């Protein structure tokens, strides 16, 4: 049964969701605009017997996650853009060692130290690698405080299911805003056996070990061994592509223009769809919920629909997800773009003006 709706800050809801998902190991380092995740964890982990460490650096925090995950525990760290950049080495190692972990990035405007206001400029970093080597993170983009809750719980299940890092990609708007959230009585936690965990070998009565020791590593010096390892990783990523694509499609059946937008931009665009309808322009939307794996097929299918004349991609960056949208559309229809930079959000009017311009002549 759904509980009553509470007014809570996005960052606090992420922390509460992680605890509800069974995470008892949080390691972090403060940075605006995600510090409330830490505050909440610092207060709550003590009460429930979990581990909270304010690490000496972001690098230390991600490697503490590596350690806790190696021992088979659900572990999380969170940061914002510059801090996530510092964590990339550890993220690559976690990919190589196939450890389940959850990393939260409440994105702020960059590059460099940039500013502290919301942005989506880390899309490339999150979905295309960020660290070195051929690897993929599952990247989830919630669009509301309620989704921050539900998808953070889900992130821990997916991490364990695939022994893979799952990144929650939010932004300063989602992290800082308060919105109603209704928590479930019981969380849909899926428990996975972790026979690979380095959690002690145990002894038999005769003093011998119960099993061979487990090794968590990402180093494979022999190129043929490393190639096999890489092929195994790629096979896993293909499985994730097949099973875990999530998106929301709105009004595609009669849409003339389809907006592609994730997270905060999808919220603003949802209202634009209503305003456009009042002007007699039919607009739909595909909102990727997983940024990787990306809903390529859904966008390709929309591009093939005769009623769909054009796409408008809306982002808080100079155009990053639009590259994946264009690959999916594959030239079938024009793809236009509207983005804001520096921590600014697009207004509904800006997006609506773009829609009208596309509708009136395809020239923007």
């Amino acid at each position, binding site marked *: 049964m759904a509980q009553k709706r509470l*007014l809570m800050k996005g960052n606090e809801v992420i922390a509460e969701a992680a605890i509800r998902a069974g995470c008892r190991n949080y390691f972090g380092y403060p940075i605006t605009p995600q510090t409330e995740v830490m505050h909440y964890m610092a207060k709550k982990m003590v009460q429930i017997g979990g581990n909270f460490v304010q690490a000496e650096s972001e690098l230390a925090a991600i490697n503490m996650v590596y350690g806790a995950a190696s021992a088979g525990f659900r572990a999380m760290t969170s940061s914002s853009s510059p801090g996530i950049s510092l964590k990339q080495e550890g993220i690559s190692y976690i990919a190589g060692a196939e450890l389940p972990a959850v990393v939260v990035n409440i994105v702020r405007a960059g590059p460099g130290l940039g500013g502290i206001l919301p942005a989506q400029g880390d899309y490339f970093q999150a979905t295309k690698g960020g660290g070195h080597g051929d690897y993929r993170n599952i990247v989830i983009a919630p669009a*509301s405080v309620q989704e921050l809750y539900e998808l953070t719980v889900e992130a821990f299940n997916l991490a364990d299911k695939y022994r893979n890092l799952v990144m929650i990609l939010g932004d300063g708007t989602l992290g800082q805003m308060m*919105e*109603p959230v209704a928590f479930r009585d019981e969380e849909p936690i899926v428990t996975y056996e972790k026979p690979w965990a380095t959690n002690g070998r145990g002894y038999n009565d005769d003093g011998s070990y119960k099993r061979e020791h487990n090794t968590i590593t990402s180093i494979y010096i022999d190129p043929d061994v490393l190639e096999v390892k890489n092929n195994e990783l790629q096979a896993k990523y293909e499985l994730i592509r097949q099973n875990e694509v999530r998106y929301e499609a709105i009004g595609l059946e009669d849409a003339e223009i389809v907006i592609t937008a994730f997270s905060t931009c999808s919220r603003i665009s*949802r*209202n634009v769809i209503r305003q456009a309808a009042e002007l007699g322009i039919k607009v739909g939307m595909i909102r990727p919920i997983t940024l990787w794996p990306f809903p390529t097929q859904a966008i390709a299918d929309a591009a093939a629909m005769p009623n769909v004349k054009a796409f408008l991609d809306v982002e808080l960056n100079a155009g990053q997800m639009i590259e994946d949208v264009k690959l999916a559309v594959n030239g079938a229809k024009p793809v236009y773009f509207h983005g804001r930079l520096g921590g600014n959000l697009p207004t509904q009017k800006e997006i609506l003006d773009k829609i009208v311009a596309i509708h009136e002549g395809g020239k923007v």
Partner: protein
Amino acid sequence: MIDFSIILAGFGGQGILSAGKFAAEAALYEGKEVSWFPSYGPEMRGGTANCSVVISDEPIGSPVVNDADVVICCNQPSMEKFEASIKPGGYLIVDTGMIKIKATRTDINVIELDASGIADEFGAMAYGPISMLGCLSKATGCFSRESFEKSLYEVLPERRHKMIPGNLAAFDKGAAAV
């Protein structure tokens, strides 16, 4: 009601962010969709503070408000910054105890209230913004007094519940000025 938007602005420490939470919580109690978003930019204690509250029957798009239905100003820099952000026909609620300039717009409704005077009378700065919530509720009906009372119980920790009668009295004084 779709995307009814309020900006509350004043000094840091004046109780602006809390007043915004009470408003959001009151509307939530009435079954609305609500959002509350603080200005978390490069600001400091004693500097300006503001927050945006959106109340709607539909899911809320942006929690960041550019064109507000109501702006509540608790100091002069806020008035200079946000008077231009009010939709034509919208409301500007001014604390005349703090703000000595007059509103320049003629296409909006201006409500003047000596909120800081009420705060002095009740003995705490936070009662000022609360009295302005009384103006907001009375003038626009975006939430009721009953819901505001409910929000006090939701937001304030139990040890602060003794302050509820004072908050309600400040709220009523603001409402009476409309």
